[in-house]
């Protein structure tokens, strides 16, 4: 590649320094990175980017799925002085991207992806890696990340379901007397997960970034500090919002729920590994007030419960699923959500009318409900009869 004269370098730089630059909004830079700007907007943003090194840096870092190494501002002086500008520079230290070697491996990878596709009919992937793909596709389904055996083990998710049964937390051994509610642990004791890549059905590479764990102090009372899985997260968070937030809220001077959410958000995040292609497991999540189910390990999701009243929590044990929602709504399914029966919760002359925010299944047939007004309703006969306890009574 022919170099440009040095005068071009200096005039390009000088143009940026001389101009009184009004930077484009974050929204426009983000849309630029995703090729989502209108033509005249794109022209305007490019005109600014041609002058502003800072915004070029931001634009480069904003590229989706970027493996862009951030360059310091003054690196341009070093780059001009030390780099052979005649050669196309690549991230791999000078190797040409479109050599036959790379194309051969790309063809092999494509062939493997096609073979995998052929083995899994009807699979649709929801991840998007390419900015062009993002711009061209309709608004993606915002899906939840399912619990995998690795995550189940990590978070001590316990189930007494048989090994072959479809379960929300598959292939995890469980003591007979333990509960079926997902539990969380201080993350600092766990080893750091590794980076993974997965080929998608559209030949897009989804990269799961797994950040290092940090030495955060996690209080035992802050149950929400670890629950990052959307399978457990909703139920955990719903309960955690209401519980033990006085210390946090007083520190931050915020409403109870905000303080706890902040603590949850700042806790170390854990990426869940995706299930192997050959596994077939049922996963559950609640999104936008609807209960959703995936029968293929999180690849596709169906809404199974949605109505006037929003759904707030669920618990599953094998093919048995319980879902709780607003105004005392409780539904039960024994066939992984294909059919449902409404359960009336009442006892001691009183009916449940507040929102069910947490469900805990206890072996062999126990169920414990917690509500948003600090009531606990329990049953030992799979919901045929119930007993109520207020928070004061429990204390």
């Amino acid at each position, binding site marked *: 590649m022919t170099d440009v004269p*040095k005068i071009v370098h200096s005039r390009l730089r000088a143009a940026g320094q001389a101009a009184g630059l009004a930077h484009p909004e974050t929204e426009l830079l983000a849309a630029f990175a995703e090729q989502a700007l209108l033509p005249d907007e794109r022209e305007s943003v490019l005109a600014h980017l041609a002058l502003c090194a800072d915004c070029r840096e931001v634009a480069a*870092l904003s590229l989706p799925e970027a493996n862009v*190494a951030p360059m*310091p501002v003054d690196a341009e002086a070093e780059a001009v002085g030390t780099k052979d500008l005649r050669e196309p520079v690549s991230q791999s230290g000078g190797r040409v991207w479109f050599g036959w070697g790379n194309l051969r491996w790309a063809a092999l990878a494509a062939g493997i992806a096609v073979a995998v596709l052929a083995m899994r009919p009807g699979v649709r992937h929801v991840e998007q890696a390419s900015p062009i793909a993002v711009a061209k596709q309709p*608004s993606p389904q915002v899906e939840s990340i399912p619990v995998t055996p690795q995550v189940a083990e990590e978070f001590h998710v316990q189930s007494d379901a048989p090994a072959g049964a479809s379960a929300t937390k598959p292939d995890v051994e469980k003591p007979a007397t333990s509960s079926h509610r997902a539990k969380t642990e201080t993350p600092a004791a766990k080893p750091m997960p590794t980076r993974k890549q997965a080929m998608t059905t559209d030949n897009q590479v989804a990269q799961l970034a*797994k950040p*290092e764990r940090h030495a955060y102090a996690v209080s035992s009372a802050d149950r929400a500090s670890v629950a990052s899985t959307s399978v457990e997260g909703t139920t955990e968070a719903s309960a955690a919002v209401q519980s033990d937030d006085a210390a946090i809220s007083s520190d931050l001077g915020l409403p109870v729920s905000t303080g706890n*959410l902040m603590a949850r958000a700042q806790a170390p995040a854990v990426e869940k590994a995706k299930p192997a292609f050959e596994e077939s497991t049922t996963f559950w999540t609640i999104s936008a007030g609807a209960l959703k189910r995936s029968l293929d390990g999180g690849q596709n999701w169906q809404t199974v419960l949605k109505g006037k009243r929003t759904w707030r929590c669920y618990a599953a044990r094998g093919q048995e699923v319980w879902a709780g929602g607003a105004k005392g709504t409780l539904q039960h399914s024994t066939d992984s959500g294909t059919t449902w029966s409404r359960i009336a919760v009442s006892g001691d002359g009183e009916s449940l009318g507040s929102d069910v925010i947490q469900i805990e299944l206890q072996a062999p047939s126990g169920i414990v409900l917690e509500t948003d007004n600090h009531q606990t309703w329990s049953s030992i006969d799979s919901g045929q009869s119930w007993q109520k306890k207020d928070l004061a009574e429990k204390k």
Partner: protein
Amino acid sequence: MSLRAQSGGAGAVADLYARSGAAAYGMSAEQFALILEEIQKKYVPTGAPHQQAEFCAALRLEELALARACAAGNDRAWEDFISRYRSKLHGMAMQIAREASQAAELADSIFADLFGLSARSGVRNSKLLFYTGRGSLEGWLRTVMSQEFVNRYRKQKRTVSLEEQTEEGAQFVASVPEPVRSGDPRLEEATDEALGQLSAEDRFTLASYYLDGRTLAEIARALGLHESSVSRRLDRLSSGLRKSILAGLRERGMSHAQAAEALETDVRDIVLDLRSRLTQDSGSTTFPSRQTPARDGRGKP
């Protein structure tokens, strides 16, 4: 003209509202319509009604509803936001900062901004209020984080410790060198003129490649092009600029030979400032004029 009228009536707005899922976060259709109207006025204030309707329909409605519900403090919205984006934000921070402690600090800072902890007069001031659904929420979050990272890096570069100053010899202040004399001003003029004739995308490509040291692949991703297209473009620009500058120099009175020589041997390439160099090399007098008498071992002259 209201959004309802522009969008073909209440039915279209209701459809957008239904698609957004805003109802789950306690947001009414009227509130959502106001949000859409605000965004539409900002980006497409003048346009045919069908264009404005298309603009609204192309927005990321569900993510917009989620973001605005979070900005309004809806707990359920925050639950969904955290479950969907917390891991991603930490991953982004790691991608951007490339170092664990910096990434953690960056992610925490962004969360604070998104939550709106910097409340003014008791009103939460969440950054999510500025998301307008043009691109994905994830992309927007990545840009917010990138901006924060770039700003932090700038601050760190400006903050130099006293130890660093001492090591770099700032305490031994040399005489201020004279600015490097520019070459023929016609060269700058001709170059500016040639650059001004290029499109914004071409100038962005040149700046990214020659000033920032971006790779062809990185530039291609930013522009939505193939890497080979960027390579060909740079070749074309390089040869085209050379011709344009030469033409500009000839228009300014230089002969072809003079123009070619001026372009190839710009004095900026030859950093030769003898005066400042000589001044630095002999900053202190080797033999002071004031004589200090020698002393014997007992300290007496």
